[in-house]
């Protein structure tokens, strides 16, 4: 029934008291992919993760993680799934390598210590006390501990929230390393660029509903968004010496002219014909942009209250 999926979720519902926070969501995470649960704060991302991690039992619906029921077999699941939670501390006086080594002892088939230090780029601070690490280094130590048991699946709950750009980049590099190791990764984030950068597939979760699922491009296309074509507004057009092109909804926004279209090739041909007829050359600054995740996301957020 679960087929080949590493994570299989059908009709998942969760209520706290009288409040339902997950209204029956479905998604699959395939083996070896980086899957991103994207959504604003309070959408139900962490709740979903906590159910998949076996911390909370769902109110209704079917959940299978690596073929197991998380709520029923949490200990067995944790031998094969690594977890990076939001805001989890370390023992204050422990040293980096010492702590990773202790974590390795919890698992039947741990990854070698040197390997773990390398994957998360902490070899240089291996003997430092944990409390002396920077925020980014601590997050990467989180990764190392989650990887200590050489898991097949890694859960990452908002791994870069509150990080500066440099720390985020290194964190992303660590996640890329996980992909290279062949791990299945399920990550949550409310950052669009993070989802776009890291994820093979995305599910947009909003107010307890999955709005869309697919690759970045699929999600954008399925949202019915148009391709955006823009170019630098020619001065002749700006002072009205040239007519607007017919058949195209072109909006002149000061220095930039923009149009949205469902048929990029045809619109482009029409634009270039119009430019040639009016001696505007090749249209300086011409850019054709496929719909981005951000556009989809913003549209979804705008459309529904």
């Amino acid at each position, binding site marked *: 029934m679960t087929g080949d999926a590493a994570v299989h979720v059908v009709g998942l519902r969760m209520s706290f008291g009288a409040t339902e926070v997950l209204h029956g969501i479905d998604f699959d995470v395939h083996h070896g992919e980086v899957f991103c649960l994207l959504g604003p704060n309070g959408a139900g991302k962490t709740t979903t993760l906590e159910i998949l*991690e076996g*911390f909370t039992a769902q109110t209704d619906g079917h959940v299978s993680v690596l073929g197991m029921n998380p709520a029923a077999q949490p*200990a*067995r699941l*944790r*031998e094969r799934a*690594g*977890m990076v*939670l939001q*805001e*989890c*501390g*370390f*023992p*204050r*006086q*422990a040293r980096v390598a*010492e*702590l990773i080594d*202790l*974590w390795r*002892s*919890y*698992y039947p088939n741990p990854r070698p210590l040197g390997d773990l230090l390398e994957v998360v780029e902490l070899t240089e601070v291996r003997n430092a*006390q944990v409390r002396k690490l920077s925020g980014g280094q601590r997050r990467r130590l989180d990764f190392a*501990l*989650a990887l200590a*048991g050489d898991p097949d699946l890694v859960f990452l709950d908002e791994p870069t929230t509150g990080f500066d750009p440099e720390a985020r980049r290194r964190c992303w590099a660590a996640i890329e390393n996980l992909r290279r190791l062949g791990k299945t990764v399920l990550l949550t984030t409310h950052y669009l660029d993070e989802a776009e950068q890291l994820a093979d597939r995305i599910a947009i979760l909003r107010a307890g509903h999955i709005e869309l699922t697919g690759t970045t491009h699929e999600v954008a296309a399925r949202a019915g968004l148009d391709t955006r074509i823009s170019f630098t507004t020619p001065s002749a057009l700006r002072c009205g010496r040239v007519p607007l092109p017919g058949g195209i909804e072109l909006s002149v926004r000061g220095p930039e002219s923009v149009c949205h279209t469902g048929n990029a090739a045809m619109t482009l041909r029409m634009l270039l014909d119009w430019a040639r007829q009016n001696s505007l050359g090749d249209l300086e600054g011409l850019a054709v942009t496929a719909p981005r995740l951000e556009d989809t996301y913003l549209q979804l957020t705008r459309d529904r209250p």
Partner: protein
Amino acid sequence: MTRTIRLAARQALLEQRSFWRSAEYALFTFAFPLMILLLIGAANAGSHLPGTDIKRTTVFVPGILAFGVIVAAYVNLGSKVAVLRHDGVLKRIRTTPLPSGAYIGGLLVSTVATVIFITAATGMIGWLAFGAAPRPGELLALAAGLVLGTVCFATLGLAISSVITSAESAGPVAYASFLPIAIISGVFDPTFSGLPDWLSRLVDMFPVKALAEVLQNAYAVRPFPPWNLANLGLWTAAGAVFAVWRFRWHAT
């Protein structure tokens, strides 16, 4: 089972290493009782309990033994677990397949090690500096009293950890909840008196005086109410029930 024991031992080793690396824990746990032992002990050296030929220090040293057990087992373990919970370390442990018994077991083994160290240090210094030694036939009773006291106060430490709400208040709450009782119970001055009757009766109900009297009795023939053992047993049971009932892996 062997895996759980092996994991608990590893956990205990890291806890002990961390303990000795942390100036605050090691200093308070060791320096405080030993300093009191030397200062008050020196002030009382040579004098006797009124109406007896028992040297004051002979009763004072086992009082400090009790104090050391309480600091190591109750204050230390209680504030340690509160900090681990507040920092999210307990929550992180839950993400691993480590059996919870192995984790808690490791913390307890480390606590027992600390109790052994402080008891040995107090006993040795008491003997060398003040000539206080257990009565020849009472070594076993002393050991039994120390074990019972450690079990009782470690259980109460786990219980109090659930009452502490922040890492900053962990140490102060743990100390404040027993130090006044220790003073009124006569741990530092066995002849401490002059309290209203109801207050001294109330204080007698706590396990601090019971443990002190059990240990004092191993050093000198003292009045030894048999309910002292029952007192420690009851507090252990109550502490265990509360600790299990209120134990949380994450801060609320």
